[in-house]
């Protein structure tokens, strides 16, 4: 088994413009997804809007600055994620295809393998 992060990106303005019906349809979609994925989901959260982000960055002077806002100023932001365990990439792709965000054209889902430290040399 390997662990993957399934990252859900989309246009924040369009997410905020969802009607209550669309929001509940989206919610239902995630319930379908989580029950389909079952125990393969080992973590996951929806994130608060990107306006609530705080960014830490090393400055040229050598200390760390604390600023308001996300790392990159774009309309498409990370909206939430799942941590999923699966045998291979195809299994994660098949699962992630069911995410309700993929029915909206402004969204994209990114799949990143998580480094497995357990098999490193002792």
């Amino acid at each position, binding site marked *: 088994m390997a662990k993957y992060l399934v990252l859900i990106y989309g246009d924040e303005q369009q997410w905020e413009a969802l009607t209550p019906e669309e929001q509940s349809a989206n919610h239902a979609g995630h319930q379908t997804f989580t029950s389909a994925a079952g125990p393969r989901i080992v973590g996951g959260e929806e994130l608060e809007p990107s306006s609530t982000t705080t960014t830490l960055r090393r400055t040229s002077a050598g200390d760390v600055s604390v600023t308001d806002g996300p790392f990159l100023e774009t309309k498409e932001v990370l909206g939430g994620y799942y941590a999923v365990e699966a*045998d*291979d*990439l*195809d299994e994660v*792709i098949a699962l992630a295809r069911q995410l309700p965000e993929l029915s909206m054209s402004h969204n994209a889902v990114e*799949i990143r*393998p998580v480094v497995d430290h357990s*098999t490193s040399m002792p």
Partner: protein
Amino acid sequence: MDPSSHDVVRAVEEACRREWARVLAATARLTRDLDLAEDCTQEAFTQALQSWPVAGVPDRPGAWLTTVARNRARDALRREARLRTTLPRLVVADVVGAPGDAEPTPAIDDDRLRLIFTCCHPALSREAQVALTLRLLCGLTTADVARAFLVQESTMAARLTRAKRKIATARIPYRVPSPEELPQRLAAVLDVLQLVFTTGHSAPRGADLINSELLDHALGLARVLHDLLPHESEATALLALMLLTDARRASRVSASGELVLLADQDRSRWDSTTIAEGIDLLVGALGQRPPGRYAVQAALAAVHAEAPSWEATDWAEIVALYSVLARLWPSPVVELNRAVAVSMLDGPIAGLAALDRLLDEPALARYGYLDAARGDLLRRLERWNEAAAAYEEALRLTDNDVEQAFLRRRIAEVRTT
């Protein structure tokens, strides 16, 4: 080296051409690690160079090589397992006998199919798909792959390393896609094979117009796909397209090495056996479902292959087929070919009007065949200066010596007329 050693070396080279992909694919099934599988495959061929002069060439070289490569792989995995003091999770517990023991052949064929779907997985970039296919399924060296695709060897080496690393760390599976996934996944495989074929058909750079090695590899893999997936009509159609196109290989360059256009080729030199095979396959592919992109392209190649001369070609049929193709596969290159066909059906003015609509197409900005086609139509309209300018532009956009020589002849011709 005594004469029999030469025979052995030739037998190893022959086995390398025929068996490389099978041996590698069968080894990859065991290791799930393409780098290790490649190393072990290479070692098996090295071992053959040492063993065969002494023990003789085995009856089934492929089985011998596969057994040696898989035994090497198993040893390597065991060593690695001992180092980690934990059992390797990927070692498959099947028994491999001594070299020469027969392995069931059907499983080896499935291995190659698995390998090609791994190399053409959609999670890899198209460049990586092509590079992996040539390196792992055709056994081309990294330098050869780099040369075919006009990049530095170091760039290609890095691309191959990155792709193999992604297969390993993201766990791109080594398997034939499920029936539901197959159509979409097969499309990527067919695209890659067509790209390899096209690159061999008109080499983008170098002294020769044709890279026969790439053509043969693309044809070989298309045959494997058709043999293993006989009911996938687009795989059948791609093989038909390649055969119908390749049947003209001998007539595309003159005895003195000059480019000969389709219009001027000696049709008696076209390979009628290959054309017949291509048409048989095409008929089979058209018998199933609505025709796909490759079936329409193969049908176009068939109309040309069956025409007694350039002038007597059924241009109405060609234009109609290009219109169908443009709907199935909207692409500026298809529009360009359609415009050329229109010029044959309705005259150069109509053709030029269709071509001029493509001048702002960003995808064709560096596509010299657009300028070459315009040059040809302007030449037929006796607009000499404009024709020369278009040929000059086409000349600027090709690095192939044979194409450059052809364009220089055309420029000289329109300048002196």
